[in-house]
């Protein structure tokens, strides 16, 4: 059982060298495309698990009392939900999944710079995921201290689950660092001769920026978690106030990784959406150069804003002031990107297919999450809503409304390339409608709840919050239902879908200039040199109307 019909493929491309058979997806394959699909499928399985955990949370919160699960179980569930969704779904899928599949195409290479390291990076993920989830079955002792694992909470909750959680996150961090090294080497060193840095598709820049963040910040988390595990196992006192330690140091080190982690999750999404919009709007990407500089500005600023998560941690006023200003500055490059996307759409010949619907919804959701983010950067406001559902709402608008919407857009956009078959448009639109309505119904009310003081991470709440919580839970139910048309669509069209052909969208980026699915070494002939990946809407040979696309003489 292959995703595409082998005989048809063989007909359209005689001598196609792609090894057939589904077993290669379970093998230590060195092919970047196989590894990309492995990341995507593995990530999606964890998305379903994390979604089920979210279902438990929303069911519990449908009523004010802890009557569906116990308070301890609720803590375990919310810890696992956060960890699974961040470390096993978002980060691997937008970085490892689409990154592995697309980056070698975009730089005109036959594979990643270090294929074996690439496979190792992927194969660290399933064991880490199994380890994490199996900790739930440790004698009532999965980690209960949230995905932040703040001490002293993480020192007082059951130790076994917390240690397993740390081990799992360390493995995933290692995987992430290996991936980051690979992307940096591939983008900087493996570019096809003749392809300049400023001619790369935008996703390359996004992945370069993301990988720099990964390499600089993930090791700090690793060191921090090693110290935390020492505190638990060897009873040292790094973060244990009873032994003279300092909990705030943990928070600083943790957020030094975990704030950039937000950009590790959302920058690749920026890149992917910058690929999708020009294709379906038939216009060049607006403001290529400003896009590049704003990505790099986000990388630099992203490393110096972490303490805005700690405004209520006894942070001194000068530090609050610095981090408020630095955080507000991030709105500038982000805003530049936002307006560039709008300008890309402006006057375009827009095809509102499923990919485009999700991409446009991303812009809407993201600007909402971005505005609440700027609000949260202001100390007086943050002190009011800190640790309330306002933060939960904001976060999910960025990570679900932002990144996950882009993951779905990318799936509809690149599925024809992955499999050679089109996803069904009707099911796709149904999926979009359910997701968009469900998402907003679920997370918009949480802003009101937070403003009115409903604390996060607690299984029970004041009965006056019941109605809005029930609205939110209905939204979550819709989101759960929205997965059904997606699953049906992906599975059915893999066998019976309309054959896509090499380039169903008439796109110009290099991954479309080969067969669908592509042969093992990406192109049977020489890798094409695409110096103008967004040259839509002007006649070939003429100067492009947009100044954003540079050309080689």
């Amino acid at each position, binding site marked *: 059982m292959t995703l595409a019909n082998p005989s048809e493929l063989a007909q359209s491309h005689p001598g196609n060298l792609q090894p057939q058979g589904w077993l290669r997806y379970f093998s230590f394959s060195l092919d970047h495309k196989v590894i990309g699909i492995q990341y995507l499928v593995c990530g999606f399985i964890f998305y379903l698990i994390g979604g089920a955990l979210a279902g438990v949370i929303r069911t519990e919160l449908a009523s004010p009392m802890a009557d569906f699960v116990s308070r301890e179980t609720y803590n375990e569930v919310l810890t696992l939900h956060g960890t699974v969704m961040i470390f096993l779904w978002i980060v691997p899928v937008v970085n490892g999944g689409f990154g592995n599949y697309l980056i070698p195409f975009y730089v005109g290479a*036959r594979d990643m710079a270090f294929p074996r390291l690439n496979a190792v990076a992927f194969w660290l993920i399933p064991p880490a995921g199994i380890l994490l989830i199996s900790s739930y079955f440790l004698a009532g002792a999965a980690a209960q201290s949230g995905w932040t694992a703040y001490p002293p909470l993480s020192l007082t909750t059951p130790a076994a689950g917390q240690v397993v959680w740390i081990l799992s996150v360390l493995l995933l961090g290692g995987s992430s660092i290996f991936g980051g*090294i690979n992307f940096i080497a591939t983008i900087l060193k493996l570019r096809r001769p003749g392809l300049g840095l400023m001619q790369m598709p935008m996703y390359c820049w996004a992945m370069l920026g993301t990988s720099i963040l990964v390499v600089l910040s993930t*090791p*700090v988390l690793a060191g*921090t978690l090693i110290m935390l595990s020492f505190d638990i196992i060897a009873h*040292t006192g790094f973060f244990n106030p009873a032994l003279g330690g300092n909990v705030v140091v943990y928070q600083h080190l943790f957020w030094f990784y975990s704030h950039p982690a937000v950009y590790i999750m959302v920058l690749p999404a920026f890149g992917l959406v910058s690929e999708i919009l020009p294709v379906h709007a038939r216009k060049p990407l607006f403001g290529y150069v400003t896009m590049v500089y704003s990505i790099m500005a986000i990388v630099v600023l992203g490393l110096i804003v972490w303490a805005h998560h700690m405004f209520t941690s006894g942070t001194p006023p000068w530090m609050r002031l610095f981090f408020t200003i630095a955080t507000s500055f991030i709105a500038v490059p982000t805003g530049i990107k936002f307006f560039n996307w709008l300008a890309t759409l402006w006057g375009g010949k827009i095809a509102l297919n499923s990919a485009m619907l999700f991409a446009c919804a991303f812009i809407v959701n993201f600007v909402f999450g971005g505005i609440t983010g700027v609000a949260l950067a202001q100390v007086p406001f943050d002190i009011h809503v800190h640790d309330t559902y306002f933060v939960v709402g904001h976060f999910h608008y960025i990570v679900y409304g932002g990144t996950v919407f882009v993951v779905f857009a990318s799936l509809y956009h690149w599925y024809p390339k992955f499999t050679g078959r089109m996803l069904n448009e009707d099911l796709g639109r149904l999926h979009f409608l359910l997701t968009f309505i469900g998402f907003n119904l679920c997370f918009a009310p949480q802003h009101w709840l937070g403003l009115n003081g409903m604390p996060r991470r607690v299984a029970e709440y004041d009965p006056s919050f019941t109605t809005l919580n029930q609205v939110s839970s209905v939204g979550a139910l819709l989101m759960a239902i929205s997965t059904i048309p997606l699953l049906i669509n992906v599975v059915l069209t893999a066998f019976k879908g309309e054959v896509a052909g*090499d380039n169903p969208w*008439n796109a110009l980026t290099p991954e479309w200039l080969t067969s669908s699915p592509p042969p093992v*070494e990406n192109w049977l002939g020489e890798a094409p*040199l695409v110096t103008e990946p967004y040259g839509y809407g002007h006649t070939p040979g003429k100067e492009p109307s947009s100044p954003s696309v540079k050309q080689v003489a």
Partner: protein
Amino acid sequence: MTILSNLADSNLTGSDLPDSELTSTNPHPTDHAPSHGDFRLFGLATFLVADGMTFAGFFAAYLTFRAVNPLPEGSSYELELLLPTINTVILVVSSLTFHQAGKACRANQLAKARSWLMVTCGLGVAFLASQMVEYFSLPFGLTDNLFASTFYALTGFHGLHVTLGVICIAIVTLQTRSNGRITATDHFGLEAAELYWHFVDGIWVVLYGILYLL
């Protein structure tokens, strides 16, 4: 000139290629060879940046603890300096000897390179032994106080790096014996070990300054 803005040209998927080339058993039927440089050292350097950030995290934690958290009565930050200073000299010298080994190897003097490698390896082992002596003579244990914990975490993490480095040097030394594994033109293993060893030494110098001298 745009090379591929015309979609009519986009059908470069290989179907135009002669059959002989497509059915070739060569797994790399097209180009690859000349354009693909060796960037393993680049990858290692990137990894060492990441590794350095782990140390940076530990250093930042130590300095913050030191600035903010007072030690309990009767304990102090004072450390015996003689042995660590000797250790610093050992590591700096070992960096120089490794550099000599690299130079000899590039000049195709493999026997000389092997001798320098053996000296480097010996210095690494001497460092580890001396570190052990220091550990056993210290008046505090891992969990005694915050300074003790941080001291052992930092020096232990660095010692782990030295141990790995010594193993790498031993492997490279053995490789200079077998024919063809290390040559004047092809000696990635040696260069990688050298880069790593310089990194470990550099970290020690910073560690010595922050932990012992400060």
